[in-house]
């Protein structure tokens, strides 16, 4: 039986956490179907060094395609190599991360193969021999169970939902022939401009601490940044649209329907009322904590735990306690 294809995302030669997640999910499907996981890794020269670690998460084979043309992501180049691989080796399902890269790449791969696509899935499983994905729609107001009508099923997986699990397999590394010519690409990535370099992205951080209009001014966001720092590099700061529209925070931090969809292990909403469009972006978080002075604020209906009170008193105390705890 053809295997399960797992796209293993790298950046600057390093495997990204979402790659572990995708391989982990692929392993679950492969075990249910009694087949193999074939991970594919594309990047610039030197990427192969990272390949072997994918075996730990359950890849039976890791195919590495290195090319100068792949020092940066190329939608056209990656699509060509991946569809070529899938056409040659076959696969029951092709899994991608629902990252910025995966959301760009997966629909192109599906369209070139002439098959359907389900994005941002929060579950994949085998039901009666068929691969079925779970995905929120209508901003999370509905949950859909979707199945592909053709082969392969092309799915992208919401980051942070499929926790990487070790399940060691051979992870045999093979070289993939990458004959692409950058001159053929109609789109070329010229540079990557990093945001504040050492900060985590809200879309990927295991802990997200978001602030809303209750913070009262952009300067007060330092209270959130200090708390995030206290968690020792595992936390990112997010924002409601109200404060992004006011120009207090960049759009890259906005959580919600017209911002990012996040699913951290812990989401802390501070001075955020909990409008439906905000919930759209964070309701699949594992645990939600709300800090709000209004006990009637709708956010408390979605939160697992809450503190009612003034955030200007609560945050400094919390930072202090977290620092103690982490020390």
């Amino acid at each position, binding site marked *: 039986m053809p295997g399960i294809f797992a796209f293993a995302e790298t950046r600057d030669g390093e495997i990204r956490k979402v790659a572990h997640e995708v391989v982990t999910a692929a392993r679950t499907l492969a075990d249910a179907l009694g087949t193999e996981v074939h991970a594919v890794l594309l990047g610039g020269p030197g990427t192969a060094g990272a390949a072997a670690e994918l075996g730990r998460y359950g890849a039976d084979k890791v195919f590495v395609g290195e090319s100068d043309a792949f020092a940066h992501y190329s939608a056209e180049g990656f699509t060509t190599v991946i569809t070529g691989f899938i056409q040659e080796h076959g696969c029951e399902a092709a899994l991608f991360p629902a990252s910025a890269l995966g959301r*760009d790449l997966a629909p192109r791969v*599906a369209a070139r193969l002439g098959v359907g696509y389900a994005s941002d899935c929060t579950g994949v499983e085998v039901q009666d021999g068929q691969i079925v994905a779970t995905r929120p729609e209508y901003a999370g107001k509905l949950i859909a169970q979707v199945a592909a009508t053709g082969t392969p099923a092309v799915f992208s997986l919401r980051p942070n939902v499929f926790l990487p699990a070790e399940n060691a397999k051979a992870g045999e590394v093979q070289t993939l022939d990458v004959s692409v010519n950058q001159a053929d690409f109609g789109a070329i990535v010229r540079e990557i401009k990093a945001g504040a370099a050492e900060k985590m992205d809200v879309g990927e951080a295991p802990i997200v601490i978001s602030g809303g209009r209750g913070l009262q001014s952009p300067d007060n966001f330092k209270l959130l940044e200090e708390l995030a720092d206290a968690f020792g590099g595992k936390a990112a700061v997010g924002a409601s649209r109200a404060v992004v529209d006011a120009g207090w925070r960049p759009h890259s931090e906005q959580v919600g329907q017209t911002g990012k969809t996040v699913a951290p292990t812990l989401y802390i909403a501070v001075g955020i009322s909990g409008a439906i469009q905000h919930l759209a972006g964070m309701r699949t978080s594992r645990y939600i904590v709300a800090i709000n002075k209004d006990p009637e604020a709708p956010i408390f209906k979605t939160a697992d735990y809450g503190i009612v009170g003034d955030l200007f008193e609560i945050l400094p105390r919390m930072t202090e306690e977290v620092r103690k705890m982490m020390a």
Partner: protein
Amino acid sequence: MRVKSIVCVKRVPDTEARVRIAADGKSVDAAGAKFILNPYDEFAVEAALKHREAAGAGDVTVVSVGESSSAETLRTALAMGADAAVLLKTDGKPEGLAVARILAEELKGREYDLALFGMKAIDDDLQAVGPMVAELLGIPAATAVTEFSAEGGRITAHREIEGGHEVVELRTPCVLTLTKGAYEPRYASLKGIMAAKKKPLEEKAATAGDAGVEVRAFSYPAERQAGRIVGEGADAVPALLRVLREEAKVI
């Protein structure tokens, strides 16, 4: 440079709308909901208008696939300032690959520099139709674009990625999918609304094929367990951290 854009727009239920699962358990009943122009498509329309204005030459055509009610959505875009509209009329509301195929077929017969899309439609939340159309047409694309410039037949687009952004250079024609960024949508003026009524809105019949995925069932999200207020004020902080550590085991 002249900027000739085609903007693909979708009619979607308002963000506040209640959506119910229909009797068959696998389709959606949005009856009674207010419908709007997809918010991300507003960014795309705005971007097209801005670039037409900056270039002083070109035009903006808006295209939608859907039932006859989508004409209203196209009028909204015309009222914002688009020049012409095309409704590719289908029975029902196709999604994903089925929509991409209809749009690609339409775009094949047209001349344009930019095919603009929203990053996602807020009903199916798919984030796919733009790059699918690019693939079907064999043209380059950049997704999640916050801002772009057009010079000498080349587009330089900034796309949002984790922890920063990518600067992508594309040749035209190309597909861009827009997210919130430099193009805060304008409101239609009364004059715009009046003018929209006289602008051309062409209707053509279209047939949707297989989208390649089928919904087997819809359900409502599991209600999150009623939240627990662990206390009031700063004194509740130790108790909160305790439950996060011991009960939830997340810190």
